[in-house]
Every structure is written in structure tokens, then in C-alpha cells.
């Protein structure tokens, strides 16, 4: 009984995270910006570092605002520099922003403040220690962002599916790209706080990878991402309790296991299927 009460907040946090990350993960996969969340988390952290130097309490709204400003700047850069051919993929820009953000934070801390530890602790959470207040705050933010993305889905989805087509259709690509990165950045800011970067990263790419194997339509993929995420969270948290291992990593490992099992079953299924598509490509359904 005690264990259940104990694991309830982490479980709720997992569900909350799965909700929004199951959706954004599909975007991330389609755009090929796999490591965006790590970069965004670090950029937000740079904001926290800035606040820290000016002696602002890491928990305060000013810090949140500063992180938000940094995320805004990053979103602007990413949306402006997004290229149409993979000469310098956007992932490279993301990677470089990540490296610069991290090292700039270190230099700032070195020159203007004390050590790194406290700052890092303030923004990287673990799913096990999560507080209800943070879960609820994040849930509200995710719901709002989710609604925005649903309402404007005819802008966001084409942008990730096919950039050129979107331009031809007359979508204001830079604006919507900017909003995309901004909303993603805000989501990452909250997610990293309640779950830590590992869970955020995994929830972003693994459920959508699994669902990519089965469908190309958005709604089924989001749904299956949610179901997979829920099942895996239950089992992962349970295992972490039983074997007394860190909770976040346990969930992630199990998620990976799930992926591997899915891939294996699918290739067994494929070899059994003599007719029909032998290679893995799913025909695009409208």
C-alpha cells in the first residue's frame, strides 16, 4: 500500500509526460531533430544560470522568465536557419547551440558565481522526487500547448511532414516554425523539471519510433504512444520499486526493451508475410 502511494506521483508525472511527448515525438522524428530536447534543456538551463548570477532564486518566476527568453531566442534562431536541403541540417545548428549553451553556462558560473552543482540540481529533476504542484503546473501548460497544436494542426503538421509543400500552400513557415520550437522548448523546460532529461528524451523518441513501425497517421500514432507509455511506466516504476533502482532509468530501459521486442516481432511477422510489402516502408495513407 505504501509503495502505491509512493509511486503515484511518479506515475502521474509519467502519464502527463507521455501525453505531450507522444505527440511532439512524432514531429521530432519527422523533422529529424532527435536531440532537440537536450539542446533546449541546456538553453533553458543557461537562463537559470543567468538568473543565478544575478542572485535570483532559481525557483522564482523571474528565473522562469529568463529561461523562457533564452528558449525564445533559440526558437528564433532555429526557425530562421532551417534549411531546406541537408547541407547543414537543422540538427547541426541544434547541436552547436547545445554545445555553446552548455559551455557558456560553465564560463558564466566560473567567472561570476560559485560551483555548478546547485544550479544543475535546481533544474534537473527525477521522476521519483516529483511534486504534485509541479505535475499540475506542467499538466496545465501541456494542455494549453496541446490545444494550440490541435487547433492549428493544419499549420504544424504539414510543416513537419513536408516543408516545401507547406511553403507552396502558403503557410507562413518561419512564423509557425518559431511557434513550434517555442512550444516545444516550453514543454521541455517543464518536463526536464519533473522527469529529468533522460525520461524526456526517451519519451520523445521511443514511443513515436515504435508507432512509426505501424502507422503513418497522426492520431493512431499518438494514441499508441500513449498506451505504450502508460504500460511501460507502470511496469518500469513497479520494477524500480521492487529492485530498488532509480525509477526514471528503469522506465526508460523497459521502454527500450519494448521497442526491441516490437522490432523483433515485426521482422518475424514480415518474414512470414510472403505477399505484400517485404521492405519496411509503410505506404502513406491520406
Amino acid at each position, binding site marked *: *500500500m*505504501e509503495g502505491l502511494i509512493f509511486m503515484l506521483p511518479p506515475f502521474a508525472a509519467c502519464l502527463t509526460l507521455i501525453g505531450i511527448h507522444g505527440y511532439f515525438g512524432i514531429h521530432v522524428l519527422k523533422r529529424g531533430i532527435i536531440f532537440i530536447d537536450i539542446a533546449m534543456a541546456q538553453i533553458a538551463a543557461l537562463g537559470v544560470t543567468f538568473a543565478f548570477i544575478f542572485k535570483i532564486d532559481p525557483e522564482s518566476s523571474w528565473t522562469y522568465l529568463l529561461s523562457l527568453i533564452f528558449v525564445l531566442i533559440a526558437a528564433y534562431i532555429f526557425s530562421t536557419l532551417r534549411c531546406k536541403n541537408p547541407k547543414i541540417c537543422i540538427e547541426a545548428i541544434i547541436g552547436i547551440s547545445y554545445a555553446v549553451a552548455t559551455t557558456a553556462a560553465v564560463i558564466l558560473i566560473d567567472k561570476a558565481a*560559485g560551483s555548478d552543482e546547485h544550479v544543475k*540540481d535546481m533544474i534537473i529533476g*527525477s*521522476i*521519483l522526487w516529483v511534486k504534485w504542484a509541479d505535475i499540475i503546473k506542467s499538466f496545465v501548460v501541456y494542455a494549453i500547448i496541446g490545444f494550440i497544436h490541435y487547433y492549428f494542426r493544419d499549420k504544424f503538421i504539414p510543416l513537419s511532414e513536408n516543408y516545401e509543400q507547406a511553403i507552396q500552400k502558403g503557410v507562413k513557415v518561419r512564423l509557425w516554425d518559431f511557434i513550434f520550437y517555442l512550444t516545444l522548448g516550453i514543454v521541455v523546460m517543464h518536463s526536464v523539471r519533473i522527469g529529468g532529461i533522460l525520461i524526456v528524451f526517451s519519451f520523445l523518441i521511443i514511443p513515436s519510433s515504435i508507432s512509426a513501425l505501424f502507422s503513418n497517421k497522426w492520431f493512431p500514432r499518438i494514441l499508441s504512444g500513449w498506451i505504450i507509455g502508460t504500460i511501460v511506466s507502470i511496469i518500469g516504476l*513497479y520494477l*524500480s520499486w521492487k529492485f*530498488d533502482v532509480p525509477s526514471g532509468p528503469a522506465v526508460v530501459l523497459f521502454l527500450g526493451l519494448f521497442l526491441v521486442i516490437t522490432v523483433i516481432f515485426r521482422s518475424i511477422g514480415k518474414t512470414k508475410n510472403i505477399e505484400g510489402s517485404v521492405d519496411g516502408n509503410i505506404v502513406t495513407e491520406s
Partner: protein
Amino acid sequence: MNRILSKLQIIFLILFLITNAQAQHRHRYRGEHNWGQNKRGLRIVTSFSDFASITKYIVQEKGYVQFISSGQGDPHFVPPKPSYAMMMRNADLWITTGLDLEVWSTTLLDKARNRKIMDGEIGFVAVSDGIALLQKPVKADRTEGDIHLMGNPHIHTGPMNWKQIAKNITIGLQKVDPGNAGFYVQQRDKFIDMVDRAMFGDELVNIFGGETLENLLHNKTLMTFLEKEYQGEKLVTKLGGWMKDAMPFRGKKVVAYHKNWAYFSDTFGLEVAGYVEPKPGIPPSAKHVMNTINLIKSQNIDMMLIASYFEKSTPQMIESRAGIKAVYLPLCCGAEKGVNDVFDLMDFWIKSINEKLN
């Protein structure tokens, strides 16, 4: 969709109910974090294994002492394991440094939701109360690059501090378990005596008493004092314990990786001439590295103290570049084989340093 979810919820519940008892059973008998003490006794959790070791001497069979961080890991980092929060949840007493070292403890305390052990309650013990802290920053901001604003928090590295730590722990014990107060005080005094004897040797303690010797040491007049004669011999010949064992490196200059060793070096007269990486996590500048290498060469320093939880590859490079030998010391007890309590720890440190000297 909802049906699936609720079915899953039910399965989740059932699984937990079934295995909960099993899990509890497991935690009780987990070998790593206790020394086979009385599971029915007072439940005490400490942040570091050293504090647990000291507490064990005081509570003996009346308590069940567990700790969170041993010398094996970085003291600033605690993996999010369910058992930690459960330990805290059920604890009667929480023992921590009380400075800004255990930043992770607030999160753990929050999760544990144990009113008794929150800061300010009787179940909360800050062992640093009353200890004279070293390396207090002159300016009350971070521009001097000091990580810890209140002073160096690694107080357990100085054996004389153990006495005050023991006193603070006993106060806490007396508050949560007044019935055994007398017992705790008795054990505390025994422990303090043990520390004195381990420190100075039986002979000097018998003549002067531990407190006097400690005061002399604190005022830095002990060595001069020992030059005096007593019954025909210089007192220094009667010196025993760690002070004697540490004589070979008294006054020796070393370099340290981080500022972990302040109290140890202060007590035993080791001079830390410089730090390789003064700010943990922040690689030193080129100028600092050059200065460090020059320092090592010009002062003929041949030893570098490193806590054993640091990664080894960078220190190895430093060894070959600067021509210096690295001494890896576990920061707390319970990590290395044979280093089970604080006395073992001090033995190990002094022995390791002496070994590297030769």
C-alpha cells in the same frame, strides 16, 4: 480507451499490493546500508556513512542506523532510488551536516513527508553546530569562487570534529528517545575517549586528558608543548596514535584535487599548496594549470590527494604530466574493503599517505 486504462490501473494496484510486503521485507534486510543492527530499535538515517559510523558507537544495540551516501559516490549526487525515500519516511532521526553540502536532502525530505525529521523538528540533527569551520569566505558573495558560502563542509575529515559531531547527535538522540538519554551520554563519552586515545595515544591522554590536548592542538601549540620534558623525557616520545603516525608528513606540502581535505590537513599539519580543480565541475584555465605545474615543480611536491569517487583518467594524465603521485582516498567509510568505520578511515588515510611517501 478508458476501459483499457482503468484495467491497467487495476492491474497496477494488484501488482503493488501483492509485492508490497515482499518489497518491505527486502528493504529491511538489505545488507549494504546497515551494520546488522537492531531492526526494532530507533530508526536513524544519516546523510553520510561517517555520521552513521559515529552514531552506531553511541546507540549500540538500541538503534538501527542507515546512511544514504558512502565514500563510493559523489557526495553531491544521490541516485533516485525508492529505498532512500522510504528510509527517510520511516526515520525517527535524520542526521546531516547542516551546511550546504547535501543539497539533495531537501528533495528527499520533501518526498519522504516525514514531519518528525524536518529542519527545526526534534528529529533533525545538524552535526556541524558548534564546529569551527575552516575556509570561510571573507566576502559574502560568490566572487571569490568559493563553492560553499558557510565554510568548508567536509567536517568529518578532521577527527577532533567527531567529538562535537557525537555531542550533537547525542542531543538529538536525547530529544527523540529521552528514556535512554543516560545510556547515550555514556556511550558518547566512551566514543569521545576512544577518539582521543586513537588520536594522541594512551599515555598522553592518561596524563593530560583528551580535552587539554585538543585545545592545544586547536591553538596550534601542541607541538611546542610536546617539546617540554616530563619525568626526564620529552613529551613527544610519549605521543601515540594518529598524531604519531602522521609525524612523517607533518609540514609536508601536497596538492589536492578539490577542497575536501581542509580539516584533515589542518589537524595533521599537511600543507595543501594548491588545488588542481578548485571549482568542482569547472575545468581549470590554462593559466591555472601552468601555475599548478610550476608550483609542483618549484616546491618539490610529489603527492596529490584525490577522493576516490573522482574519475581516474584525468588524474592519470596529471600524474604523468606533472610528475606527481596520486593518492586516492575514500571520502567516507563503507566504500573500501576493510574501511568499515571512521577509525578505519583515518587509519587508511594516514597509512596510504605514508605508503606513497616511500
